[in-house]
Structures are given as C-alpha cells and as structure tokens.
C-alpha cells in the first residue's frame, strides 16, 4: 500500500503513533508537505467526516482520528513554515464563542505561518472581547474568525460590530471562514474577506499584509 494511503488508514483508526512515524517516513522519501497533508492526512479526516455524517462512526472515533491528525500535522509544521523569514504581519485567529471546532482553524494557522505570518491563535469558543483585545494588544493587521455551526455564525457579526465600537475597524481586516459561511454572508455582516479553505486564507492574509505595508 502506498505510504499516503497508509497514513490515511492509520489516521482513520486513530493510530497517532503510526501516523507520526509514517509522515516522517514520507518526508524522508521525498514527498512534499502539501501532498502529505492533502492526500494523506486530510484524505483520512475526510473519510471519517463522511462516516460520522452517516452515523457509521461516532464522536469517540472522531476524537482519536483528530488526535492522529494533530500528531501528523505537528511533524509537517516545520516544513510548512518558511525558514528564517521575518514575520510579514500578525493575525489573530480563533473559533467563535459556542463553537468547539478547531481542526480547520489549526490548518489555517499552519498555512498562514507557512506564508511567513505571525499567528496568535486564541483557540476555540472565544468571546468577542478576546478577539478585539488581542488584536489591540498585539497590533494585528487581521482578525480571522471561524465557525462551523449555523448557530454560531451570528457571533461573527458581533466581532465586526465590536471592532467598530472599539474604533479599530478601519485598521483591521476581518476574515471569516467555515463550512456554513459564504461570500453573501461575509458581505451581509460587514466583514472584509471570505475564503473557502486554509490555503486561500493564507494567500489572502499574506496579500493583505503586503498591501498594508506599502
């Protein structure tokens, strides 16, 4: 079985240790980080996601798969990061209050760091004030929030409003993302940018910071 399939299968079974070793082996064999991530790790998570939707597996299975995913991504992290380049900008990143999803957010963090950005990950279930205060304290150019539940999307609007109230709306770009979020929603709440996945989020953020410097 080729090594990417092995990574995917072991991830689905929650075998974190194997995933770690296999990812390292794949790197040693010369595969590039992006391929390992997409065709190995994300492939496995995708299958678990489908099965969870169809009630073929349950929360505990997802938990161990996610843990294996994290273990594997940690190994990839140094490869995704650009080496020795000074941070081109700061991003405050978090999942909004009421939402505990973090796998996607963690991916976004890694991709952004890979583009040379400094990411301040304030975690999951983050209240509005924390987004704003962290942005103020660190002088971040971007606030990026994610939500995976339709019930928590509304919080993103609160982040936009709070930014206005705190007087930082003009100096901070607000990015939004997550499965139920789309362009229409982004516009309707007054956020700046919507991106559908981690890679495009990283690209967009890098672009924003580049333009802000000029």
């Amino acid at each position, binding site marked *: 079985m080729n090594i990417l399939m092995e990574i995917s299968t072991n991830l689905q079974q929650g075998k974190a240790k194997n995933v770690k070793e296999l990812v390292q082996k794949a790197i040693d064999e010369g595969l590039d980080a992006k391929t390992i991530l997409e065709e190995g790790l994300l492939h496995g998570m995708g299958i678990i996601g489908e099965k969870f939707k169809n009630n073929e597996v349950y929360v505990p299975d997802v938990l161990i798969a996610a843990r294996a995913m994290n273990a594997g991504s940690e190994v990839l992290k140094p490869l995704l990061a650009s080496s020795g380049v000074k941070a081109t900008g700061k991003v405050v990143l978090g999942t909004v209050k009421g939402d505990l999803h973090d796998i996607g957010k963690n991916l976004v963090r890694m991709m952004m760091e890979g583009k040379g950005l400094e990411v301040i990950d304030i975690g999951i279930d983050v209240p509005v004030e924390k987004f704003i205060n962290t942005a103020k304290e660190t002088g971040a150019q971007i606030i990026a929030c994610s939500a995976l539940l339709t019930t928590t999307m509304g919080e993103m609007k609160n982040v936009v409003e709070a930014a206005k109230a705190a007087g930082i709306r003009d100096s901070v770009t607000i990015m939004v993302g997550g499965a139920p979020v789309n362009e229409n929603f982004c516009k309707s*709440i007054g956020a700046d940018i919507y991106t559908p996945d981690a890679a495009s989020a990283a690209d967009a953020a890098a672009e924003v910071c580049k333009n802000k410097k000029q």
Partner: protein
Amino acid sequence: MNSAKEKDDIGFNFERAKKCVDDYSNSVGVRCIIIDTHGQTLYETCIDNGACKFCQKVKSVLGSNQSCLNAHLYGSYQAERFGGKYVFFCPMGLVHWVSPIMVNGIAKGAVLAGPVQMIEPEDFLIEDLIRKNGIIEVHIDEINYYIKNIQVIKPEKVNSLSELLFVVAVYISDIRPSEYLEEREYHEQQSDISEYIHYIKTMGGDDSSLSSYPLEKEKELLSLISLGDKAGSQKVLNEIFGHIFFSTGGNFDVIKARVLELIVLLSRAALEGGADVEQIFGLNYKYLSEIHDFKTVEELAFWLSKIMARFTDCVFNLTDVKHVDVIYRAINFVKQNYMKKITLEDVANHVYLSPSYFSKIFKEEMKFNFNTYLNHVRIEMSKKLLLDDSIDLVDVSNLVGYEDQSYFSKVFKKMTGVSPGKYREARGQIKMAAKST
C-alpha cells in the same frame, strides 16, 4: 471516598446518584465519579483498579490534581451545552465521558466516567503528553507501566457507554428526556443545513442553478407532503433551508418572508393530500401569528420543521385509523413498489388479508379506494420525471409502473386536468384541476 453531604447542600438527590453510579460502574466495569459545580469529586466508585492507580500516580508526580479537576469541569460544561453528553480527553490523554445533573434548568453537578483508552497502549504517545504536562524524565517509565493497566475499550462501545451515562444522569436530574431530544433534533437540523450549504459551495461554484432558489425542490417537497412522507420531506426541507441561508447570507427578514411563503405552500400540499380543510386553516391562522415570536433563523427552521411534520400527520391521521398497522404497511409497500406491476391482490397478500376485505378496510379508513391511491402515488412520482426532458414519455410511464403509455396519459389527465405532454411543456406551472375519484 464518600462525603456525608445533605441533599440541600448539593441540590440534587445524592443518595440516588450514588446508587446509580455504583450500579453503572458495576455493570460496565468503568470507574465513575460524581462532581460538584467546582469540579470537586463528591463520590467515586473504585471498581477499576488500574485506572485508580494511574490517576493516583499522576497526582503524586504532579503534586496536585488541579488540571484533572479543571478538565472534568470543562467537560461537564460542554456536556451541558451540547445535548447532555460529552466525550473528551483528559490532560493525560485518557478518555472520559460526562453528563450533567440538571435541577430546575441549572446544572448542580455531573456524573463522569473514565479513564479508559480507545487504542492500544503501544500506540499511545506517552512522550508527548509527558512533555505537555511538565513531568520530568525520571517518571516516564513508571507512568508507562501504569498506562498498561488502563483498560482499552473500542470507540463504538465508548459511544454507547456515554449514551448510557446520559440516561443515568437524566434519571438523577429532574429534566424530561424529551427536552434533550428536542435539543438534539434542533442541532441535527442545523448540522444538516450547514452541510448542504457546504455542498452548494463546493459543487455549485459559479453554477447559478444551484445557488438560485430551488423551485424544483419546492415541488418535490410539496409532493412528499401530499404523500405523507415525513422523513423524505424533512430532508428536502433542510436542503431548501440551506439554499435560503446561502443566497440571503442569513438575512433574518428575508428568511422570515420565505418561511411564511413556505407555510402557505405546505398547508396547500397537506390539503391536496387529503387533510381536513378546517383543521389546516385553523393551524395556519395560529402559525402566521406565532412567527413573530422568533428572533433567530435557527428557531424559525426548527419551528417550520415541526409545522411541516404536523401538516404531514394531518394527511394520514393514523391515530383515528382502527387498522393502523394494515394501512401503514400497505402504504409502505406501495411507496416501495409503485414502479412495479402491483395489484390490489399483491398488497392484500402483503398484509395477510383477503383482497376483498383489504379493499373494504382501505376504503373505510382512507375514504378513497386503493386503486385511486396507487394512481395518486404513481402520478405524483411521474411529475418529477416529467420535468426532466431527457426521459421519454414512454419511459416515464414505465418508470412509475404503467405498462401502457396511453393508459398512463389517461390517468394523468384525469387526475391533473392536463396531459403529461402539456404538463412537461408548461414545466409544471399549471393549476391542478380538482381530483376526480
């Protein structure tokens, strides 16, 4: 480790709770604890020696178990927020599950089970965890030794154990199970809608037909309601919601308007399916005034689902039907076999009645005869196929169970007022003529 606390101090029936966790622990062989609102352990069953030893070891190495308490408390908060149960990893990477004890709508504590493992110890990433918890090297071998005594339970079983603990917690609490079930239905609906939005995003892209309002889906929905198909109609309703969400960007007022339109449409579908006119109109009046109570889109979606279920129930009011089981099975048989050449005799056989007796019962209960019902189902299904121009009329007729195309056309025209060809031309935009029986 018992504490002699009075019922008043704790806020729930402590004696009952202790007995419950003892019984639970004994039957499933997993350690179980009762915690208070600060995460402090009030009672513990030490049925699982391996687990107890491990936790004690960790506590002695770290000097305190504050991080454990925090993890337990955090878990119980999440359980309270998300449907009454939560499965999680503690700081040492072991699996626990927890359910809150609710009294008067407030959590007074929780029942927690664990630790167990879900994978073999060899796969356990002990080094990472030791680093994360700041345990010094010298303890690694000891911890490794005790880890091997933690029992391994497969994820599927852990899931069932967590469901069962939830049942125990409900018994100790004063909350009615139906409240949790409603909450779960609500979350499931949102989850479905969310997924569908994601589907539109990834499949649709620039394809405007996917992102514009799905009139075909609406027709499908109305058809399913008039046939009394609850599960099918719920699924399609969630898809329509996904579209509405997607295209309006979550704009509450626009969505409210769409929902109002849908209620009226749904009521007409129910009427077409044979529901009682007075009853439906009465419900409509009630609903149209209720809509203003809602403030969020999710509440609207859930409320509309309930309305739709109600309307669908009115279509076949089975509670009034004496021969419930027979009718139900007959209807199911038709739903699954309408596309084949089935007769009254086939269905009667399926429900173990003579054809004449079955026919009599059906007519008594449903107020129309069996053949009429069969034609109604076939014609409804054919409408959907007719909207696809690539299917020949001959094939449409075959696909819904008519061998003879001209017979199909005759029945179609009798039931809808127009010929299949005309229906197809007009893309279904025709007013339905009164159904002839």
